[in-house]
């Protein structure tokens, strides 16, 4: 049994203008200690997937179909008390902007102790010890003095390390990192990614890394899931997807990496923008932007089909594979 198994998940947001399907039939599994990357443009449904795992979808949104099985238990059907015991304890989450995720008026120590005491019946002193130990694990110098500092007294990279330390506090089985390096500058991005990778290997923690940067995913993860307009369009082992993508959208994403461009030439880009979730085109959602589109693409929606170790939702995946 997989550690985390998401089955046919649908999330619908009820808006005035009608229902919007933010997540459409998403399925994936995560084994113990495995690292999965979820890639896609803004609005593709990556973060909603993450929130859905923790049953944190709020008001206009709702999980309408599917299951999130964590160690065999369906998280979507747990009551508030039970799900709180999972959140931050067995599955923790790291957000994009460390300036925003730390409460500006509480000290680092306070926030860490609070998190520990929410799940375990331990004394403040013991909690502080664990906090210091975790701060050291994320390589924060003079961890003891950091406990009494406020978030604004730390630099951006340092803050994200604190956030990671908080995520590690209760030795979770899975960490969901929602664009953990987007708000940081490039040199620190690499440091934080390496730290995250090492920590996951060291403590044998599963990682779900959400990002729009294929470069980041290729360094850290073992599996990739590419999302477009709320649906999974390609899924498989990282190496295969990076080297031989069999969906035109993934190909476009990889070609758009600056590293793929010859100096002096224009950057490659996928023409057009992702359709609004409220009017997804007939047939394949990607076909208006696809350079390989045929008659069939605008009429029939391709299903997610297995090709050896991976899945792809394109009518011509087999041809790309044979090339």
């Amino acid at each position, binding site marked *: 049994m997989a550690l985390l198994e998401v089955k046919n998940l649908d999330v619908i947001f009820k808006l005035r203008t009608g229902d919007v399907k933010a997540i459409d039939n998403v399925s994936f599994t995560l084994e113990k200690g495995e690292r999965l990357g979820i890639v896609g443009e803004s609005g593709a449904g990556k973060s909603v997937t993450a929130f859905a795992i*923790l049953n*944190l979808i709020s008001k206009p949104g709702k999980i309408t179909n599917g299951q999130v099985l964590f160690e065999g238990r369906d998280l979507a059907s747990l009551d508030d008390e039970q799900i*709180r*015991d*999972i*959140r*931050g*304890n067995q599955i*923790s*989450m790291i*957000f*994009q*902007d460390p300036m*925003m*995720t*730390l*409460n*500006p*008026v*509480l000290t680092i120590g306070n926030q860490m102790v*609070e*998190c520990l005491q*929410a*799940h375990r019946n331990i004394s403040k002193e013991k909690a502080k010890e664990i906090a210091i130990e975790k701060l050291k694990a994320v390589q924060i110098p003079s961890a003891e003095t950091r406990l009494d500092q406020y978030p604004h007294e730390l630099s951006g990279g340092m803050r994200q390390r604190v*956030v990671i330390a*908080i995520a590690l506090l209760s030795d979770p089985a899975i960490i969901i990192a929602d664009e953990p390096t987007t708000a940081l500058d490039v040199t620190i991005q690499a440091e934080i990614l390496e730290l995250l990778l090492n920590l996951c290997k060291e403590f044998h923690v599963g990682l779900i890394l959400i990002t729009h940067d294929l470069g980041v995913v290729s360094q850290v993860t073992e599996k990739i899931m590419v999302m477009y307009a709320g649906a999974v369009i390609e899924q498989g082992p990282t190496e295969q997807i990076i080297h031989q993508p069999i969906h035109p959208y993934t190909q476009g994403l990889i070609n758009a990496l600056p590293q793929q461009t010859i100096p002096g030439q224009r950057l490659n880009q996928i023409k057009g923008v992702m359709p609004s979730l409220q009017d997804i085109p007939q047939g394949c959602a990607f076909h208006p932007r696809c350079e390989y589109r045929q008659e069939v693409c605008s009429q029939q929606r391709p299903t997610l089909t297995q090709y050896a170790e991976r899945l792809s939702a394109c009518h011509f995946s087999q041809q790309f594979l044979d090339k």
Partner: protein
Amino acid sequence: MYWQRIKSSAAYYSFTHNRVAMVSALVVFIICALSALAPIIAPYDPWDLTQFDIMDSEIPPIGAEQADERFMLGTDAMGRDMLSTILYGTGISILIGVFATLLQAFIGITVGLFAGYFGGRLDSFLMRVADVQLSFTTLMVAIVILAVFQATVGLDFYEDYAILVIVLVIGVAEWPQYARTVRACVLAEKEKEYVDAARVIGLKPLQIIYRHILPNTFSPLLVISTVQVANAIITEAALSFLGLGMPVTKPSLGSLIRNGFEFIFSGSWWITAFPSLILIILILSLNLLGDWLRDLLNPKMYSND
């Protein structure tokens, strides 16, 4: 270490470079200190009927003809020493102002936090209650309640519990100010990621509301609190002036003003003038302090200094 922190803070800098703030803080401090020390420094005890003599009534303050050296600020119609009475009365006014504000804050903050965080029907309900409350002016509510209360329990009983009742009335009448401010803050704060992060950590809603969101609403609360203390003092003075506030035996500044008002045309101006002066200075200083705090805590507002 805390002193160092205070000294290096922006608030300390702004305070020491703002003469108005410094002077008004000093004035508020002196008035509070004097009234707190009233039992020690006041020459007489105005609450003790045995300590004054009707023969000493309406003696003018020092400097005027017929002044008496025993009574620096003169005496009132009952022969009470004005200085002592003002010292005690200021204490009562401040006490009522502070406790009424605390009560307003307690009710208002609780209502505002819950309305803002949970939203939906609870929010609509609580805010409509606040709207209804606001549609009655504080004075009207206070007059009705106090008049009914005085009539039902009798004046003797009322005199013993006057402070408590006035605090309750002013506290209950003005809580929507706090509720609205807090609710507006909560609506802005709860969209921030640290609230999501707190939920992801697995904290309970009450923990999130009180530990994470409440401290982030403190700056506007601090500002309205100074203004609300001043307002509560004024309201109490107005009620006393109408004869519904503190009884003559334990006068506040408002009851003192009312006391002397009857004699103002017979030439005994000092009975009304001195308490009024203290009231004006106290309220002005509190409001100036509030202004300074608002400038300090609201960086969006342009300020010249």
